[in-house]
């Protein structure tokens, strides 16, 4: 984390969560120019046509653009503050946008990719202080703001979502430390014949790490913004009772929060709470049979839902036959996550599936262990399903679903790390000295360490000493 930002910095200053309106603040000289590029004024106080021309303490209605695609992200209200008459004493802007997570994150992402830095803990207040906007007697308060902010960040880091990000990054870090250790071993103890001289291995490790970081970066601003929620995919043939179950699980009093269209048009996501656990139910409308063939597209979508989910409820209605179930599960499962799939024999009020035992037997062979007969209509065993959800939720760290980057600062850091790794891979491919590759891998690790809190030198020396046997 830079201690003092040189570029304009930005942050969403309204609370996390979905509200009607969110306010994004940007401070720093030059922020006007950045906003000019990204907005088109529709109506303003003095009829001016760009943000920079606005007088201080005036507002304008504007469209906020993604300048690469030229698409409007949101219609926003801009407020301008001139230096030094702003909170921080620098040139400042406030963008009031619509309060959805996706919109907020997209605007932040675009600001970051156009020259803004993410604000550090208490950075607005800190800057205000350094620019003399806050008097000496408040210095302590400023320090408290920083301390509290970082405390909050620390607490956030301990939440499950960030815990998962850290776990993921830990594996990326491990690849890179391994790569570095290989390079460093050769470099520090060159006269030893038994030190592994293996550029191929280094390259492989860098490529793996680069791929992992890349997929994290791509997940940022992908449109499907999640808070810390468990994703449960509802799968099964049409009319297998998914909707009834969904209604039954959500209940009247646990109101549906939002209905956000998913990444594919055919999946419907419903946010609800099961026994206090925040859950996103993903209704995969895509799995269906046309004549005797499974529709290829449907499988693809269902697979994606499978991969992205933490748990799968697969519904089998009384009239479904063994073959169609097994064919689908075989296709979808590929041996993964069998322990988090539950077969629900639905509509059990209207009779038992004639092949239930055979289905159970075949599914067991695939590693599936959970079978429940349910009826949404008569609420039979719905509580058993909920218990299972709770049990799986409580298996700590058991979530393997895709990790999505939601923090703009993290995104910025990882993007830089990716650039560094590109340089490293380039250097290794070009046969430039490993000293260069090592230098840029180190930069990448430095950056990842800004999220995970590890420092390169200490980790590296430990890795070298634990992995290799050297000495005079």
């Amino acid at each position, binding site marked *: 984390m830079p201690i003092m930002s040189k570029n304009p910095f930005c942050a969403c200053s309204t609370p996390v969560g979905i509200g009607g309106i969110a306010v994004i603040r940007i401070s720093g000289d030059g922020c006007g120019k950045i906003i000019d590029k990204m907005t088109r004024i529709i109506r303003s106080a003095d009829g001016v046509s760009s943000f920079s021309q606005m007088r201080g303490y005036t507002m304008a209605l504007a469209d906020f653009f993604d300048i690469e695609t030229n698409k409007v992200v949101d219609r926003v209200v801009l407020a301008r503050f001139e230096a030094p008459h702003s909170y921080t004493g620098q040139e400042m802007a406030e963008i009031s946008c619509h309060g959805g997570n996706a919109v907020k994150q997209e605007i932040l992402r675009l600001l970051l990719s156009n020259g803004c830095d993410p604000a550090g803990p208490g950075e607005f207040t800190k800057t205000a*202080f350094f620019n003399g906007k806050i008097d*000496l007697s408040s210095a302590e308060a400023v320090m408290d703001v920083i301390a509290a902010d970082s405390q909050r960040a620390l607490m956030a880091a301990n939440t499950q979502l960030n815990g998962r990000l850290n776990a993921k990054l830990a594996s990326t870090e491990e690849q890179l430390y391994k790569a570095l250790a290989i390079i460093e071993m050769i470099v520090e103890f060159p006269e030893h014949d038994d030190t592994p001289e293996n550029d191929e291995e280094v390259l492989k490790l860098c490529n793996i790490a680069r791929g992992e970081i890349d997929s994290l970066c791509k997940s940022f601003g992908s449109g499907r913004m999640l808070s810390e929620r468990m994703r449960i995919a509802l799968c099964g043939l049409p009319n297998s009772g998914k909707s009834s179950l969904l209604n039954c699980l959500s209940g009247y009093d646990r109101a549906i929060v939002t209905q956000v269209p998913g990444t594919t048009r055919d999946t419907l996501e419903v946010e609800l709470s099961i026994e206090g656990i925040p859950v996103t139910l993903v209704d995969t409308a895509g799995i269906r049979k046309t004549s005797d063939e499974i529709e290829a597209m449907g499988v693809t979508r269902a697979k994606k839902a499978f991969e992205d989910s933490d748990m799968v409820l697969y519904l089998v209605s009384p009239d479904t036959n063994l073959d169609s179930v097994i064919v689908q599960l075989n296709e979808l499962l590929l041996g993964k996550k069998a322990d988090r799939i539950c077969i629900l024999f639905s509509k059990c009020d209207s009779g038992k599936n004639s092949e239930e035992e055979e289905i159970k037997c075949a599914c067991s062979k695939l590693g599936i262990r959970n079978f429940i007969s349910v009826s949404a209509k008569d609420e039979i065993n719905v509580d058993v399903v909920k218990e299972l959800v709770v049990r799986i939720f409580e298996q700590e760290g058991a979530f393997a679903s895709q990790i999505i980057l939601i923090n703009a600062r993290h995104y910025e850091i990882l993007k830089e790390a990716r650039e560094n790794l590109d340089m490293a891979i380039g250097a290794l491919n070009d046969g430039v000295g490993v000293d260069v590759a090592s230098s840029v891998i180190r930069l990448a690790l430095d950056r990842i360490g800004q999220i995970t809190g590890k420092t390169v030198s200490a980790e590296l020396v430990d890795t070298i000493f634990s992995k290799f*046997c050297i000495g005079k």
Partner: protein
Amino acid sequence: MNFEQAKSIEYAYEAGSFDVAIVGAGHAGCEAAHAASKLGLKTILFTLHLDALANLPCNPSIGGTAKGQLVREIDALGGIMGKVADQCAIQMRMLNRSKGPAVFSPRAQIDRSKYSVMMKKVLENQDNLFIKQGHITDLIVDDGKIVGVMTESKAIYRCKACVVCTGTYMESRTIMGEVISLSGPDGLPRSQGLSKSLKELGLPILRFKTGTPVRVNLASIDLSQMSIQSGEDDIPPFSFENEMKGLQVASIDEQVPCYSIWTTDETRQVIHDNMDRSPLYSGVIEGTGPRYCPSIEDKFVRFKDKSRHQIFVEHMGNDTNEMYLQGFSTSLPEQIQEQMVHSLPGLQKATIQRNAYAIEYDLVDPLSVKPSLESKIVDGLFTAGQVNGSSGYEEAAAQGIVAGINASLKVLNKEPMILTRSQAYIGVLVDDLVTKGTNEPYRMMTSRAEYRLFLRQDNCDRRLTPIGHEIGLIDNERFCLFEQKQAQIIEEKQRLKSTFTGPVPELVKLMEDIGMKPPQSGISLEELIRRPGITYDMVSLIDKNRKDFTTDIKKAVETDIKYEGYLKLEEAKIASFKKLEEKAIPQELDYEVISGLRLEAKQKLNALRPVSVGQASRISGVSPADIAVLLVFLEANKREFKHERL
């Protein structure tokens, strides 16, 4: 004790008065003594044994990875290790040639006794320097400030500053299996009493362990069973002055080879069968040993998957038959050492001339030392070398020159010289020791340096010679040569940038030879050198007008061009590093009163008292948020100060 107490001791007498007293004449002491006397201060250098001055009690080599960089840095500042090593080299190599210029590391096998003799001669002929065989047992301190030292023979030497560099001698004991001797390395006398004196002054004392392998007689071994490792020709000298004057180190014909062998199953068996007699595992040894330099028994225990380990057999000098077994350090009993050595190929009948031993010694916790290497507890007292927790001749010498310079600057009432992590390996070394401390003998490694592309062995002079000149260790004549060299580098880079070549046949052939497409149109020589696989030397085929430069200049030109993009990245990192490094923290600051600092940070900062925000940021347990809080506090303080002045 204070001066009054010292005077009142029976038979005590005043033997002289000096500006700087240096305790210990190892590699740190020699550099410190040289620097202080050269800066015009009346200096006295004490040694327990004059014949062991600048002794190499372990491996007979100087340089190597990161260490070679240190030697060249010492030379660039005006030190002497490089110059003496250049005269005593019996084999030269440039390690890591294929790994990129940032990690090129010169290493020399050294004639051990010649090195000691040559160093003694240099120091004996140094103005302002007095050398004295004597055993310092007490420091004399008045009002928290060093005023003198006292020998075992009760001679009092007054001094204004003192550098303690006792290496591994303080309260040392050597261990071979069950046999413990109260001795220094190489059977030399140990230092007794000084450690107690330091402790009484309030300095925190730690205890470390290290070790050394056996030496065998060349006449008793069979070299035909070993593989040969020869030296290399055309290696630049350690000393930039020698390099600039065109002086060459030992030519290839004058060099001796080293040999390499592997341990056998028998070696492993002997060690395995006798592990119960190892003092490391029986608990006899209390000190912390280094991870990077494990004894051979340690290697077999810690790396069970490895059935054999490599051993190097190295000449100890031209006038001796002694051979050093690098990688075979042990603290097993003498009797077992015989069996172990005889299990090695070519050494079946070897006669051991000196046995291997482990050695334990007292040292000062470097966390009690300032970045200038002055003690935080006693004014005017400096420590350097292994007494600060480092390991290695080069690490010691590097601290020696820093302590020698800063002790002198202190006497002269000037600000200390503090090299930063972005300026030199020396800066990394000192900062690591005094900021992070160490729980094992600290060895310099290139991977400890964050700015490795920038801290190269070929540009040490560019980084440090102006500093050495300003301080006064580099004379005008040498500085003039230095400036000429730098001008040549700049000029040559400029010439390459503005010289263009078309796809002439020589170029086409050159490119095709390395499997690259020749350029279609004109290209500058600079562009050409930047391409992977093409070196400055290769381009000489089409660059007929080039001057003949030294290896150093050629390397600097090539690296500056090839690494330009990467260097820029590193320079950006350095720039942001410098900002925090330049923010000084008042030494009397009470961190307890700073609201917003976490408890752990308060404790760590209060204990360590960093000199800059940069140093504070490297203390383990101090978070970036703590640093932000600290910055705000310092700013508030500054304003308050201004306010008061108005």
